[in-house]
């Protein structure tokens, strides 16, 4: 019962000292909000990336060209398909393009290899000279079915040192959505033949996509390597690893920046927690004079800090939730997603997990305790007459 009494007194104290509580809470929210938002966005992107990798092919084959991934003859797909254990192999073209000054991804696939997971919001699959665009891109550029989309890709002449680009014009036949909002955001999907024609690279594609029977990936990869020493093979595991390492690197940069900000916030919280410290010291002196033991005073202050930390973490979580769900994480998503502005043109993927919230609570508790336990202990261990002075 006595612990409960101390807990209720602590809760009352938070309400009684409204200004002090508010200042500490605002400071906690200011520190925890970017932390929770960033982790939620990072986890969301990581999850979508994992899904993309998992739903992708088992192997991607390209040619080694100057030590980089280079074009590969489209006909190799047929040869690869003959390898025992290969379920399916087909060529594709994937490249970065610019549409009205904005970066996008052009993906060319054989008509019958269009992903079945594509969900058309409007229109249909592309026919020759047609494209379908992702929902994010359509929204961002104000595109609709029937609009013409010109994709500038080829320099057809240089006159007086000025390059002239040849633009191929496509009709938009559909707008699609998929489980991954990032994937749909800037994607332009066309028939393989159109993609090849756009780049005028007859019979060459950027890579061959290979689906393999379960447990045969290693064998198939080895067989492909044996076909040509210049083939470069990327497995699903490698893709997964790149994604993980990429996010870990970004997450690491964020963590370093956040740690610096956190370290700077500690003295700020110490100063803020000292807000009204003399009144607090006097109060503690009164408690002690009236028979409270030091540990009871410390327990009450500890409860106060737990409550403040919990309210701070919950408020930061709520603000983060609103910031992401209602406003689509302005200024935060760009930390983790390359080449988007302060306002993402697509629904920023987000995933709120219990662990970051728990971490935020622990951080808040550490901060509030750092600011209050020592002064409280000091006030509680001097003779009450001194503390009350």
């Amino acid at each position, binding site marked *: *019962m*006595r612990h409960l*009494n*101390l807990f*209720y*007194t602590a809760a009352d*104290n938070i309400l*009684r*000292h409204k200004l002090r509580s508010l200042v500490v809470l605002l400071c906690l929210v200011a520190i925890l909000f970017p932390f929770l938002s960033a982790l939620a966005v990072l986890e969301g992107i990581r999850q979508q990336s994992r899904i993309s990798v998992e739903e992708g092919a088992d192997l991607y084959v390209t040619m080694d060209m100057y030590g980089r991934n280079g074009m590969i003859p489209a006909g190799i797909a047929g040869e690869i398909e003959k390898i025992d254990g290969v379920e399916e192999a087909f060529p594709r073209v994937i490249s970065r393009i610019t549409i009205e000054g904005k970066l996008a991804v052009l993906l060319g696939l054989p008509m019958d290899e269009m992903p079945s997971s594509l969900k058309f919001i409007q229109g249909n699959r592309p026919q020759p000279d047609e494209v379908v665009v992702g929902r994010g891109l359509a929204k961002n550029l104000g595109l609709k079915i029937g609009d013409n989309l010109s994709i500038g890709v080829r320099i057809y002449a240089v006159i007086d040192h000025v390059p002239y680009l040849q633009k191929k014009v496509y009709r938009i036949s559909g707008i699609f959505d998929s489980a991954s909002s990032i994937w749909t955001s800037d994607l332009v999907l066309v028939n393989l033949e159109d993609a090849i024609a756009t780049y005028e690279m007859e019979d060459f594609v950027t890579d061959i996509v290979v689906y393999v029977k379960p447990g045969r990936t290693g064998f198939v990869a080895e067989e492909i390597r044996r076909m040509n020493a210049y083939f470069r093979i990327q497995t699903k595991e490698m893709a997964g690893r790149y994604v993980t390492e990429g996010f870990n690197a970004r997450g690491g940069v964020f963590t370093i920046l956040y740690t610096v900000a956190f370290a700077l916030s500690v003295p700020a919280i110490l100063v803020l927690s000292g807000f009204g410290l003399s*009144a607090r010291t*006097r*109060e503690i*002196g*009164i*408690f*002690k*004079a*009236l*028979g*409270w*033991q*030091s*540990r*009871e005073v410390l327990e009450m202050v500890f409860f106060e800090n737990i409550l403040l930390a919990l309210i701070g973490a919950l408020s930061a979580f709520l603000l983060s939730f609103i910031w992401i769900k209602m406003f689509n994480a302005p200024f935060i998503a760009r930390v983790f997603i390359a080449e988007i502005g302060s306002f993402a043109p697509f629904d920023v993927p987000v995933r709120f997990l219990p662990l970051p919230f728990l971490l935020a609570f622990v951080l808040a508790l550490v901060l509030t305790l750092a600011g209050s336990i020592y002064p409280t202990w000091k006030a509680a*261990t001097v*003779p*009450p*007459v*001194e503390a*009350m002075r």
Partner: protein
Amino acid sequence: MMRGDARSGHDAFIHCEGIWKIFSPGKLHEVCALVDVTLTVGKGSFTLFHGPSGSGKTTLIGLLGTMDRPSRGRIHIEGRDTTAFSDVARCRFRRRRVGFVFQAFHLIEKFSAWENVAVPLVPLDLTHRERRRKALELLDRLGLSDRADHLPGELSGGEQQRVAMARALINNPDILILDEPTSNIDAETVASVMELLGELKAEGKTIIASSHDRDLVQSADRVFELRRGSLFPPGGAP
């Protein structure tokens, strides 16, 4: 009777021997607040320390109430050496045996009157309802039941003092210590305080107070004069 030695005819409930209190010892601003004070206080008596400001009255009653430790000397209460108590033991002793009324009342500004009265009960195994009931009973006894939910800032000086008195009595202590109990209140309230002290004494409580007040001097069983930290019996030579 020796200077600073004041023995009573009552049973030795509290016995102080050779008490010194030096603040900031060894420093330039060292203050010797009490000098070799020896005295005995009888159980159920009303003992008053009288003297000018800065004479050491507050320091002495603080030491008797285990609020601080003397620099030298021993204080025995019912034969137990309170100067040897640990911090925890002193807190426990204060909670169970001592009620304090401070000169400046020291009420907590953000607590209502009844909450202030119930502060000593918070770390005990009592429910909120029990605490409130006990506090209201005492406030009622002191004529403040209608002010129970008011903050100290909304109370007069006399009312604040009664709240402080109620808080001192909430644990039913057998020692009541009052520091200048009549200095911040009007004449009418002084009379009610005197009456209350009379009642408490009749209940068998040992009352120790410091005061300038002549009326209070007349009500006390024993009066000691404090001058520059030294204790004198009434009329004793400086």
